[in-house]
């Protein structure tokens, strides 16, 4: 049985904060196929096109028939735990301070056997669900989980190293004026955050939902305006060392293509709120997050950013907005690299049109704010990096991966 986490005590101010370390991070280019799967929470291995053999670890040619470049495919994730070993010492600095550590061999139903991290609730002979997790170096790691949810399963010490579970962590939701922001505050509070700081800009402007937002348990309203560097820096000075998860809910959705707009006022607002806002947030809060990546049970763990899926491929109906989102997507890749030394994840939640005012004229399917937020919390709990919420986001992703040029023409 996993020992349930207890709410961490306040830090001993006389103790040095443990610095984040990374597990070994070198992988072959081919092996990065596993990262792509892990980022989305999918279980994918290579399957030989010629002989249909499922291959692990990743290889450049099929070990059975030597056919080149087997492709990664979704494969069945069940298997049997053949053997478990508890490692008690290591020369690797990261693992050394996390001993003991359980690893085991799993015979997969789809063929290969995999050496994996093993959840504490599993014993030899158990059926397992194999998953690919992103470890603290950002690389994919095979992780064997119980088939059925066990009590306090998410609290497993090894698993929590690879996830960003909100339980007992402190979150900052950047914009509480929006439906998505308010939904986020509620969901993070329910997911066990000890404090949910919720940013509100222009407090002199009333907004719908203000009263119910204030009533959510553990919510603390803070002044925050992502378009104002002073405001972001001031807040970071106050709470920067006490924020473990940031969820950027800022939005500025306006329809129209590049030429359809008259002048740059709206485009600047979009860039200021979304792209420069993200940059201000990262500059003000990022260094402390990165520094606190191994700071105990409530270590800093993730930045979550909502992204319009047309960041991948511009949709001219929302052409200028898509371009802004593309800038944010690109920035997220830089931030991932910059946050990596701290083991802090940057999670992109891609979505299509939402059930909100500024997508009002579009027909369904649209994603409800609560559904979007549920996916974000799920991504934190599972430690994902790229999440596509709803039919439109998934459709655009699939068409983009299949043929980006074709998608450009179709849009």
């Amino acid at each position, binding site marked *: 049985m996993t020992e349930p986490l207890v709410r961490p005590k306040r830090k001993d101010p006389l103790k040095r904060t443990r610095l984040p370390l990374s597990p070994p991070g070198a992988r072959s280019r081919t092996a990065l196929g596993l990262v792509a799967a892990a980022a989305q929470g999918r279980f994918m291995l290579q399957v030989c096109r010629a002989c249909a053999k499922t291959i692990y670890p990743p290889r450049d040619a099929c070990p059975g028939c030597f056919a080149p470049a087997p492709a990664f495919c979704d494969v069945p994730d069940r298997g049997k735990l053949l053997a478990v070993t508890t490692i008690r010492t290591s020369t690797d600095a990261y693992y050394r301070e996390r001993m003991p550590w359980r690893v085991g061999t799993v015979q997969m139903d789809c063929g290969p056997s995999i050496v994996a991290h093993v959840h504490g609730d599993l014993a030899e002979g158990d059926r397992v669900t194999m998953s690919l997790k992103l470890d603290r170096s950002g690389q994919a790691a095979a992780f064997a989980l119980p088939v059925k949810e066990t009590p306090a399963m998410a609290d497993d010490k090894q698993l929590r190293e690879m996830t960003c579970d909100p339980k007992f962590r402190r979150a900052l939701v950047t914009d509480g004026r929006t439906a998505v922001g308010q939904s986020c505050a509620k969901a993070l509070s329910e997911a066990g955050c000890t404090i949910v700081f919720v940013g509100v800009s222009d407090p002199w402007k009333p907004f719908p939902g203000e009263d119910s937002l204030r009533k959510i348990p553990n919510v603390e309203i803070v002044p925050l305006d992502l378009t104002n560097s*002073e405001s972001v820096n001031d807040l970071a000075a106050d709470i920067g060392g006490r924020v473990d998860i940031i969820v950027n809910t800022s939005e500025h959705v306006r329809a129209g293509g590049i030429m359809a707009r008259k002048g740059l006022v709206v485009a600047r607002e979009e860039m200021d709120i979304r792209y420069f806002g993200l940059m201000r947030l990262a500059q003000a809060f990022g260094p402390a997050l990165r520094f606190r990546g191994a700071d105990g049970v409530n270590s800093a763990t993730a930045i979550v950013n909502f992204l319009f899926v047309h960041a991948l491929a511009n949709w001219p109906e929302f052409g200028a907005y898509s371009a802004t989102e593309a800038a944010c997507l690109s920035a997220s890749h830089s931030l991932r690299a910059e946050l990596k030394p701290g083991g802090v994840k940057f999670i992109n939640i891609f979505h299509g049109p939402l059930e909100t005012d500024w997508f009002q004229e579009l027909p369904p399917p649209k994603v409800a704010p609560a559904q979007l937020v549920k996916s974000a919390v799920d991504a934190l709990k599972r430690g994902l990096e790229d999440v596509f919420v709803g039919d439109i986001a998934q459709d655009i992703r699939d068409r983009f991966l299949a043929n980006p040029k074709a998608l450009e023409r179709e849009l």
Partner: protein
Amino acid sequence: MAGPYSPADLLAFAGAVASGAVRVVDLTQTLAPEFPVIVLPPEFGQASPFRMEEISRYDERGPGWYWNNFTMSEHTGTHFDAPIHWITGRDMPDASVDTIPPANFVAPACVVDVSAQCAEDPDFTLNVDHLLAWEQQHGKIPKRSWVLLRTDWSKLPPRGYANMKDDGAHTPGPSPEAMKWLVEKRDVHGFGTETIGTDHGQATHFNPPHPAHYYIHGAGKYGLQCLCNLDQLPPKGAVIFSAPLKIKQGSGSPLRVLALVATDGAAT
């Protein structure tokens, strides 16, 4: 202007300022990011609030100096409205901030105190009757005078200051009749307020809408808003110095508004 004015007179004036015999009252709000700006329905273009980015502060970006870039709209903070700001004033001569004759940036002011009424009613509307009552007490509003509406609105905290409800802003301001009368019957220099604009919070629903803008600028006159410290001015006799930035074809400009007040307090 009657009579000659000698260099000695001017120096005497400067001396009076230096000695404090003429008091200088700052009618300007500090330009700060948190100060409310006018909010239009979201489908319209919006005025930018004040924002500042540090260029360097004695650091690796500039070791010996501190300076900033800032951005804002022409109508952010305490600001000046030029006639060209409104459609009624678009064909006026010398109607943008760069072409207004500089002498027009110095003018006397009448201060109409309606702060007691506004404390009771945020929707207080200034009517001709209020102005006539003021004239009964202080004499006729002279031509080419600013009329400044003292509401004490500048003393409110931001939320009360903007006072936005689900049916729009509730802040005091002038009626269409009052504005028409000030412009046509009194030939005022301009109209100034403590609120976010020269118009009433509900002025969209007036006829014509936004009568302060409509009449003042339609007559080639000026507006001042987001003023403060009007409670330090006498009803009559203060001289306002209000020079906007010389922005090419500018419709307005943030500015420093100063009032010169004689310390014997005597109204003329």
